[in-house]
């Protein structure tokens, strides 16, 4: 499958899995971290129950992302949507457990529970810390972004060569955040960065910091490649359309299919 097909396949699978009539009626479909679909798929390729490993890890990610959307205090205007957002996160977590229990994969249930545990602790520290610059902010953020991928790598005994993949994930996350910022969105990551980093107060400063950091990680990935570390997924793959849409399609069609 090409990367596009992989993303489409798992996106459909996940959306079918989380379908719940009342939630679907009142809430938007959760946004999927498609770079993580690509990364997890890469790690578990050809393993038994490959689909379940990707699907359940992504469900945990979606559940935790969904709960991040809950405001510090409820907004009076859309109380029901916020109430359902709490339950949607719980529902997605429940499905992850249900699916893995049905295929009797207790060890993976445990690993993902370990991941939730570590991620909630890391998030709690992260949300309530003040950072002097974007680099310090990112050094804590990396942990949150990569926890679940590390757990999957651990499951398939690939923890030792997970270095490239973790950097790749950070690169794709930041590309996503930059594109999203340029489109005028003000998401959770953007708000957190502006509220908690002393040197960043507005979108312009954030965009500049993101670009610089993307350059830095990109360079680090090049160094890993030069040093003959295995290139698991090409860094140029443009999942979030940082380039124009036409270029993106061209890249995928011409050279980067697996």
């Amino acid at each position: 499958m090409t990367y596009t097909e992989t993303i489409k396949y798992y996106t459909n699978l996940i959306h079918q899995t989380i379908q719940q009539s009342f939630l679907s009626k009142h809430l938007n479909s959760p946004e999927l971290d498609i770079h993580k679909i690509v990364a997890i798929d890469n790690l578990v390729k050809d393993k038994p129950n490959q689909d379940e490993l990707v699907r359940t890890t992504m469900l945990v990610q979606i559940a935790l992302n969904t709960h991040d959307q809950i405001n510090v205090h409820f907004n009076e205007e859309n109380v029901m949507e916020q109430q359902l957002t709490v339950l949607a996160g719980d529902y997605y977590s429940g499905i992850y457990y249900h699916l893995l229990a049905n295929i009797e994969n207790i060890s993976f249930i445990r690993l993902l529970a370990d991941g939730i545990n570590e991620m909630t602790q890391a998030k709690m520290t992260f949300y309530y810390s003040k950072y002097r610059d974007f680099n310090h902010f990112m050094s804590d953020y990396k942990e949150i972004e990569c926890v679940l991928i590390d757990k999957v790598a651990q499951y398939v005994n690939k923890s030792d060569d997970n270095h490239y993949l973790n950097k790749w994930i950070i690169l794709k996350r930041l590309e996503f955040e930059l594109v999203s910022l340029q489109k005028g969105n003000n998401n959770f990551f953007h708000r957190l960065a502006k509220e908690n980093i002393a040197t960043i107060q507005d979108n312009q400063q954030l965009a500049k910091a993101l670009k610089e950091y993307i350059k830095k990680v990109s360079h680090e990935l090049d160094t890993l490649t030069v040093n003959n570390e295995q290139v698991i997924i090409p860094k140029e793959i443009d999942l979030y359309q940082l380039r124009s849409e036409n270029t993106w399609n061209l890249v995928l069609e011409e050279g980067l299919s697996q």
Partner: protein
Amino acid sequence: MKLAKTYAFIKKDLSVIEDALEKTVHADQPVLHEASIQLLKAGGKRLRPVFVVLASKFGEYNLDHIKNVASSLELIHMASLVHDDVIDDSNMRRGKPTVKANWDNQVAMLTGDYIFAKALQQFTDINKPRAHQILAKTMMELTVGEIEQIKDKYNLQQNLRTYLRRIKRKTALLISSSCQLGAIVANTDKHTEKVLFRYGYYMGMSYQIIDDILDFTASEKELGKPAGSDLIQGNITLPVLYALENDYIKKDLEKAFENKHEVTPERMRPIIEQIANSDAISQARTVSDLYLRKAYDSLELLPANQAKDALARIANYIGNRKL
């Protein structure tokens, strides 16, 4: 009689479970640790651990395994409560400030997720796939029950069946699963497991109906929130369903619910008083008693032992509880 006296003979084992709970929720992150400990210390009846322990007494009793199951179930219950308080915007529970009140919604969400993860970590020590399938299904149903509750808010057209299905998901299944999982972890025979599941289910149904009655009949001081809070939030419980058979109450309620934003404690007080003084309360109690009867009947199918006597005493306590 106090509830704890009904099962005094397992007091030592419950205290081992209580220690396990405290150890399990330990977090390195200070806010998360404090919030989790606050939740734990807020008390509660620890009904689910009690049912796990008593059910296990009908099989091979191994406290190490039982401790894991019992504390996991209590943690899942706690995680759902901390998220419920966000949903209901509740600042007080059992007369104490909630996590969302002491910190904020975000801390409450993370605390709930953290406790849920701890519960699963603990439960994965039990290497019995069927136990995981039962618990997973219960958790899914629990959430669907909560979603259904929001869906049915302010809906006066719902019927008894809708209500019973909702409380089954919301409350009864976690109690029946506590009994069933206690039986499974103690390797009881299938018949005993099934009987204990049924006992738990009937107890859970009765327990929730009594809770819904107390919401009208207990005082604000006893409840730690205004009487009729469920109705003020739009939840149609069994006493309300019966009260709707009275045309006057039905009209008043329909009028009050015309504009949800105007459903305030002051606006609802006269309706709540009407319901509290109506036959609806005794009718609801009759349904609760029917479930209790079924719980006692289930117990008849179990061999005589101390646990069976305790389960009967708990049924008696729950049937007569004031709060």
